[in-house]
Every structure is written in structure tokens, then in C-alpha cells.
């Protein structure tokens, strides 16, 4: 318990942690103010105009949809993938909110905003995780600590647990504040949109996954910096990965038409994690004309993340236990 307290104090006292927190809040504030500046409460005239446009479009869309459905198997086939793929979703569920411009509609905008939040939480976690342990290893702070607490597993494990706990707490608070702020904005200078119980559950799960992604990157930053004994090692690995693999290898694999190359990209699993599912369509094939599309699901992403964590964090623990601290 003493070690946890000391580690927590050390983590929160670090200037880098504080600077990153301020930076994250600043980014969110800018995002929020941008939304504030581009929204207004719709006037009765705007609402009436939107309702009129919606009614008109709905008539046209329903007409087109009905003919499309009848051409593709009739009413019985409405829920088949064939109909959904060819006719698109049933547009009868559209609402007036979709016909208002310069109005912040919570139900339609919050999901992309949570994606942005997830990216920031991941960046924050990665940098804090990497610098926290990296600075300890390069400064000799870790050596000092091991003179007091010689069990390396316990020391490294406590550091990681304290780090993850802190990032989790910060993420929960930030996420709640972030979503709450936009909900407040929608109610005061925009529109909530259609917010059913299902919507809130779905949004809650999305936020949980965003926080999970942040924790994943926190652990990865910590693990890579421990393996590389330096903060810069983690930054180098992530930059190298993005340039060499996500960009370079993606181009090479596309040129060589390697099958299912998306499976080798971390970004695919991140997208699947956040969306719940990602469908990959073979290149140069449309409408199922050649090959078949395949899905990467939330479960696949969880397995991929687990493997990545086992390699980076597990490897860091094994390496740290055996390493000579010279």
C-alpha cells in the first residue's frame, strides 16, 4: 500500500503528466467551443421548414425504397442483406434533426466526438505510460527504488497498476465531463435528437470501449518503454510502426494484392473495437462480384489486443526481472 501511495504521488507530481492533462483539457475545450460557435437553437420557422423538407423527402424516399424492395424480393426480403445492401437502410426512421443546419444534434454528432475522445485518451495514456517508466529507468529512480523494494515484479507491477488505475480514473472523469458537456450544449443551444434507452446503452458501451482503448495504449507505452529502457523507445516504436507498417507495408501489400492484409494492421482492430464490427471488402471487387467480404469483430479485436499486451507487457516483465541494472 505504501508503494502504491508513493507511486501515485510520483505519477501525479510529474510535470509531464500535468502538462499532458492540461493539453488534453485544452483540446477538448477547443472542440467544445468549436461546437458552441457552430450551433444555435433552431427557430420555429427553421423547425417548420425542416419538417416540411423531411415530409417531402420521406415521400420520395419511401417511393424509391418500395420499388427497390419489390425489385429485390418484395416485403418478405426487407431485412435480408441483399435488400439492405442494394436499397440502403429504411429511411423512414429519419428525423427532423437531420434537416437542420448549424444545429448541434447530440444523437447524431456524439459518436464521432467519442471517437475523437478515444484517440486522445489513447495518446494521453501512451505518452504518460511511456514517460512514467522511461524517465524512471533513465534517471536511476528505478534503481533507487529497488534498493528499497528489491522485488522487481512487485515494483514494476505496482507502477503499472497505479498507472492504469490513474489513467482509468482520469478517463472516466474526462469522458463523463466530455459527454455531459455536449449533452448540456445540445439542450441549451442545439437539439438532443432521438435519444432512446438503446441509444444511451450504445453510447455508454462506446465510451467504455474508448476508455478501454486508452488503457490498452497506456499499457503498451509502459511495456515498450520498459523493454527499450527509455521513453524515446516507445515513441520510436509507435512512429516506426505507423510509417513502416501502417503506411509502407499497406502500400506494398496492396500492390502485391496480398489476401486479407487488413488482418495484419492494428488500425483494423482498433476500428473493430470501437465500431463493434468492421467489414473488409476485397479490393477490386464490388457487390460481392468476386471473393467475399469478411468481418473483423469486437471479439477478434479483443484477442488481437490480448496478444499484443502479452508480447509487450508480458515481455517487459520477463525482461525486467532478468535485466542487469547497470
Amino acid at each position, binding site marked *: 500500500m505504501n508503494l502504491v*501511495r508513493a507511486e501515485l*504521488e*510520483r505519477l501525479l507530481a*510529474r510535470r509531464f503528466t500535468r502538462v499532458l492533462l492540461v493539453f488534453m483539457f485544452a483540446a477538448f475545450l477547443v472542440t467544445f467551443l468549436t461546437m458552441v460557435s457552430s450551433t444555435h437553437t433552431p427557430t420555429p420557422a427553421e423547425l417548420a421548414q425542416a419538417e416540411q423538407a423531411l415530409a417531402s423527402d420521406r415521400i420520395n424516399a419511401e417511393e424509391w425504397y418500395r420499388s427497390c424492395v419489390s425489385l429485390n424480393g418484395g416485403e418478405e426480403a426487407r431485412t435480408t442483406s441483399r435488400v439492405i445492401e442494394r436499397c440502403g437502410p429504411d429511411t423512414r426512421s429519419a428525423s427532423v434533426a437531420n434537416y437542420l443546419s448549424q444545429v448541434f444534434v447530440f444523437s447524431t454528432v456524439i459518436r464521432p466526438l467519442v471517437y475523437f475522445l478515444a484517440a486522445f485518451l489513447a495518446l494521453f495514456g501512451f505518452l504518460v505510460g511511456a514517460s512514467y517508466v522511461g524517465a524512471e529507468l533513465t534517471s*536511476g529512480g528505478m534503481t*533507487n527504488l*529497488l534498493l*528499497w523494494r528489491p522485488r522487481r515484479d512487485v515494483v514494476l507491477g505496482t507502477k503499472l497498476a497505479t498507472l492504469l488505475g490513474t489513467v482509468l480514473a482520469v478517463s472516466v472523469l474526462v469522458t463523463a465531463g466530455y459527454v455531459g458537456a455536449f449533452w448540456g450544449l445540445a439542450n441549451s443551444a442545439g437539439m438532443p435528437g432521438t435519444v432512446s434507452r438503446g441509444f444511451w446503452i450504445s453510447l455508454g458501451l462506446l465510451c467504455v470501449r474508448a476508455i478501454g482503448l486508452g488503457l490498452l495504449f497506456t499499457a503498451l507505452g509502459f511495456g515498450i518503454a520498459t523493454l527499450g529502457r527509455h521513453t524515446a523507445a516507445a515513441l520510436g516504436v509507435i512512429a516506426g510502426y505507423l510509417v513502416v507498417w501502417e503506411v509502407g507495408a499497406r502500400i506494398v501489400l496492396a500492390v502485391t494484392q496480398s489476401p486479407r492484409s487488413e488482418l495484419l494492421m492494428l488500425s483494423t482492430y482498433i476500428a473493430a473495437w470501437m465500431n463493434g464490427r468492421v467489414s473488409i471488402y476485397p479490393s477490386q471487387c464490388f457487390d460481392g462480384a468476386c471473393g467475399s467480404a469478411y468481418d473483423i469483430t469486437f471479439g477478434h479485436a479483443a484477442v488481437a489486443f490480448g496478444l499484443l499486451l502479452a508480447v509487450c507487457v508480458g515481455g517487459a516483465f520477463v525482461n525486467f526481472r532478468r535485466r542487469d541494472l547497470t
Partner: protein
Amino acid sequence: MAAVIDIGGLRKTYRSLRRGERLALDGFDMVVEAGQVHGFLGPNGSGKTTTLRTLLGLVRPDAGTMSLLGRPVPDALPEIAGRVGAIVESPQFFGNFTGRRTLRLLATAGGVARTRVDEVLELVGLRDRGDDRVKSYSLGMKQRLAVASALLKAPELLILDEPANGLDPAGIRDIRDLMRQLAEGGVTVLVSSHILAEIELICDSMTIISRGRRVLAGPVDEVLARYDKGEFKVRVFDHKRAAALIAESGLPVTMAEDHFVVGDLADPAWITETLAAHQLWVAELTPLAPDLETVFLELTGTAPEPGRRLQVDESVLPPAGPPRQIELDEPTPDLTVEPTVEQALS
């Protein structure tokens, strides 16, 4: 007396892809008895820091046995870590933390009362600078902070690697007094230093290491006495005639420009008596007792020679002995000067 530190046959080889293998410790032995201030000496790169790091569980040995406070290490380190204070090389601290916060974090991690922080800051002379950021500290002040961190636990055994590094003369004296004071209070101190005059002043015993092997171990005064050749510097008006008179008695005499040196002399009064009998009046009679620096340079083969630039790792390689395994219940061996000394000197 019980051995507080007992190292037998310690071996460590560093391996790296770029530089290959480097043997740092080659069957090294060391024993430090309770309540002593023990000097640990050796040329640069001889294995001192590796020994201390290995002892403290920071480096994994390839072979050998070690015990601290009677417990085998590294296995028992978690149990005894609270009784051992240590600084290894010049520890670095976070520059943005104050000295007090740095110590407070260590105290929290180690379960030491925070009141102890102020006590050790006072002890190392940082009381009024404890709330300054570490990055504003001079090298000597950082060193004082490091010593404070080692003292925080009120240890039974204090291991200090180059504690005087960067200290001003007053700081060196403070640390020296502190070590003596701690030893008088029953704390065993192992100190590695290149300031041999300090070691000579404060240490009860010492171990000299060269290229990973023990060259010599024993009480400081016994080691110095062993290398005392009974030499005296004699200055008289007619030093050539005086030297001839002394030489007649069979004692070895070495001539210098304005004096001569007599060796193998047990009683210096004999010089004054003999020369006075021939109307030669002694102007200076100085014992040429060996100092630790001279002994160290001779034993490690690092004495400067005209026209030769000595490289690191060119110190004496003592003959290898069989690895010594010391059991816990085995009586502590006598710390006597080993026969290898003569071999090293020859």
C-alpha cells in the same frame, strides 16, 4: 566478529552484441565485519560498482555466493532491504522534485516515518535547501541528497559508492565524520572511494580489487605496517660521509642529492647516536612510512611511469584462486594479508 558482508567466488560477465563479452568479476571474495568502516578500493573498471550492484540485487551474478547481514542474497534481499542503506555511483533524481519530496517518496515507498526526512536532511547539511528543486543542486548537494536517501532507513549496513564524489572539502569532512559517527553507533559501513587519504583516515579494514579479483584484504594499519620498510630520510651537513658510516653497519642506504635514505631500521635513535659519535649532527630524521596511495598504486600496478599512458584494464591481474564457498555457520575467516600480495609486489 560476525561477517556483515560475505562474498565468495563471485563471477560476472557482461555480454553485449556490439562489444562481446567482458569479464567484470572473476572469483571475487570479500568479507566485511560488523561495526567496521571497510574501504573498497580498485582502479577504474576493476569491478567495484559491479560488486556493489550485484550485492544489492541490481546485477545478476554468474556464479558465487553472497550474504548480507547473515542472510543469503539476492534471495533474502526483500527481507533485509530495510536494514541496508546504499548509494551506487552517483544516483540521479528527478530534477523537478524538491530534495524533500524526493526523500518523502522514498520514505513512503519504504514505510519509513516522514519525520525521518527532516532528520537526514539536517544530517547531510541540506536542511535549508530541502525545498529547492533537485535540478538547482550542485553535484555535491546531489551527492549529499544521495547519502541522505541511504540514511533514511537508519540502516545497520551502509554501502556507499564514491560518496565524496563532487563534494567540497567541508562536505568530504562531513561525510567522513558521519561515517565514523555511524560506525561508533554500531553501523557497518562499506565505502568505495578513490580518495585514498580519506580511506586511510576513516577505514578500519579494506579490500583492494583489480580486474575482478581480490588483490588484498585486511586491516588498514596492518597492511600499511606490512609495507613499512623501516625507511628513514636522513639529512646531515656531510651526508656522503654519514651515508658511508651507516652503510658500514650493513643497512641499505640510498643516496639522494642532499640526503640519504636508510632502510630496515628498527630504531631511529641508532642513527642519531651513530652519527653523533662521529661529530655528524642530524638536521632531519623523517620516517618514510608508506601511505595507502603508494601501497594501492604498487599493488594494482597503476603507479605512473614516465613515458607510459596506463589504460583502463591494464592494472595488475592477480592470480586466480579457487572459488571460496562460505557457509552461513562457518566461522568468519581471519582477515589477513594474503600471500598474493607478495606476488603482486614482485
